[in-house]
């Protein structure tokens, strides 16, 4: 059996619904229609009354999920696109994220954000928002890069008593496949060596892991062994695994698909520079998308986002330094 990243997300939701009566799904068009990307296909039929179509109101959707969580439920909310979570931003960062700290009331909600660029999606259907949410205290931010992680991390997200921002990458939805669903998983908060190598560490997450792996395969043909670290979650961020890798390679490139100012790559480089300065044989580097909105036309988009080719150039440069 072969299963896609998207199907894994569907299966995780099905399992969460089956295993725990407190789980329900909430979002636009997720009921009988099965969601804009079909991540909830058939779930409304399989779990009557537990997959609810919402109004077109992101702020109220998140607010309602918080209220339901206070009542002991464990909602999984789908934003139609990550980009639309800007409209529910306040409820996420000021209500969900502060509730436990302020009142000792847990807020176990999972917010699924279909994230990242795809062909022709343009400025408002391509954004990566992990860095914004990770900046705020009180949120867990997951960024699965594999089918297995999409499945197991989503299940873990639902089990966690805190609000989880689940950044699933649309570019991986249909193309990324695995042979089956995992039965066990690394715990959230642990990064993973996606490919071992001794010459340079490339830290990536979500879709960028695959660009990094493609680059690593290419550079392997030239005799360069790239170690690719998949962060898996960006908050918490597993500094130890990154440092251990840099200890082996002495060189670091952090790659992210979001905008260049701040964000995951800045955090990774800053942590390594602070805590692993002595491990570095060369200046640590970053590669991000360009500092403009995400362009609509594929000709532009292909340059805006980091690709295997662009990463390869950055790695070669880093190896020369």
């Amino acid at each position, binding site marked *: 059996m072969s299963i896609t990243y998207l199907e894994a997300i569907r299966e995780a939701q099905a399992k969460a619904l089956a295993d725990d009566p407190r789980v329900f799904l909430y979002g636009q068009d997720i009921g009988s229609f099965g969601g804009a990307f079909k991540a909830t296909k058939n779930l409304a039929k399989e779990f009557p009354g*537990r997959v609810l179509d919402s109004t077109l109101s992101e702020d109220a959707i998140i*607010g*309602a999920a918080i209220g*339901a969580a206070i*009542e002991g439920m464990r909602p999984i909310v789908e934003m139609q696109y990550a980009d639309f979570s800007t409209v529910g931003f306040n409820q996420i960062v*000021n209500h969900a994220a*502060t509730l436990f700290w302020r*009142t000792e009331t847990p807020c176990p909600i999972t917010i699924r954000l279909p994230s990242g660029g795809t062909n022709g999606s343009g400025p408002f259907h391509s954004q990566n928002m992990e860095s914004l949410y990770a900046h705020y205290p009180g949120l867990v931010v997951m960024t699965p890069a594999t089918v297995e992680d999409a499945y197991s991390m989503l299940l873990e997200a639902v089990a966690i008593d805190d609000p989880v921002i689940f950044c699933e990458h649309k570019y991986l939805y249909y193309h990324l496949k695995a042979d089956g669903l995992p039965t066990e998983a690394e715990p*959230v908060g642990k990064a993973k060596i996606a490919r071992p190598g001794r010459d340079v560490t490339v830290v990536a997450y979500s879709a960028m892991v695959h660009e990094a792996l493609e680059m690593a395969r290419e550079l392997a043909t030239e005799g360069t062994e790239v170690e690719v670290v998949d962060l898996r979650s960006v908050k918490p*961020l597993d500094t130890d695994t990154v440092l251990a890798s840099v200890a082996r390679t002495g060189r670091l490139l952090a790659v992210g698909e979001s905008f260049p100012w701040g964000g995951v790559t800045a955090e990774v480089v800053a942590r390594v520079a602070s805590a692993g300065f002595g491990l570095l044989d060369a200046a640590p580097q970053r590669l991000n998308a360009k500092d403009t909105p995400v362009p609509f036309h594929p000709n532009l988009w292909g340059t805006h986002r980091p690709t295997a080719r662009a990463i390869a150039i950055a790695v070669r440069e880093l190896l020369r330094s």
Partner: protein
Amino acid sequence: MGIGFGMVQAMVTPATGAGSLKETYLGAYRWMLLARVSEEKYASLYRGGKIHGSVFLGKGQEALSVSIAVNLRKGDIFSPLIRDQAGRLAFGESLLDSTRAYLGSRLGAMRGRDGNIHRGRPRDGYFAMISHLGAMIPAVAGALLARRMKGMTGAVGATTIGEGGTSTGAFHEGVNLAAVEQLPLVIVIANNQYAYSTPASKQFACGDLVDKAAGYGIAGHSVDGTDLAACLETLRKAVGAARDGGGPQMVVASLLRLAGHGEHDDFRYVDPELRRTALGRDCLEAAEAALLEKRWATPKEIAAWRAEAARQVDETVAAVQREPLPNPDEEDWCALSSKRLVDGFTTE
């Protein structure tokens, strides 16, 4: 010492139930009095530099606020806002909890992390507002949605907002969601004529805010917010209708804020004309006058109740002032309940 859930003095029988009108009125009056007296105390502590942050008073809005709470039952949800000291107490918050929040006691529900009006005990159905106006409405709606999914029936949720808050997108999305889902939500709008310094004429252009109810397809009720009997009756109807499956109920009360926006504010911007109209009537004084007129209480009784309220407040404040303040060294400085997921990286 703390007044709280189950306290005898004011175990108000909900007006929907068997209690006589007199009992209900008297009970409500005494919560109003306690609210007024406690807030006066907080204001004086604030002026004396004993309270950090802001103090916002519900002066002039006690009749409305208490009328919500006395019509709620155990198991209902109440999500108050900044002018709801009366409703908070009547819903079951102890004076101790309230005072601890203002003074930042380490022993209070908020533990000095958050203060004053942002307090609550969400798991008891007593929601803790965030500052962003309108944000609590969808939260209460979601809680009611959850109860329906759990098969729990018969409970209602009530939440309050000012006329200024009706201009927020959160208000609209929340009320609309509740309407579409036909949830037992009572939305009480206190049109106290000002949002901070901004007059109501700059917040909405409809003749009466209750005109909004039809636009959401929900029931609307108007009431004179300075009249305790009218408030009790209107809320009895609205809460009852929500409980009986009538869907969301919007209650619009007209009144005037009789204090500054917060205690830092001298509210010179309030039109003096307006203060002389019926809107400017002090609901507590009006309730007292009614009590005397109906001979439900004597001046002496009223004086005794006020003295009793003052005594409770003073005692509570004195006790809380002896309590330990928050101590940074005893904080875990962790915003998550899942301690294992703390992002522990620090470089110092």
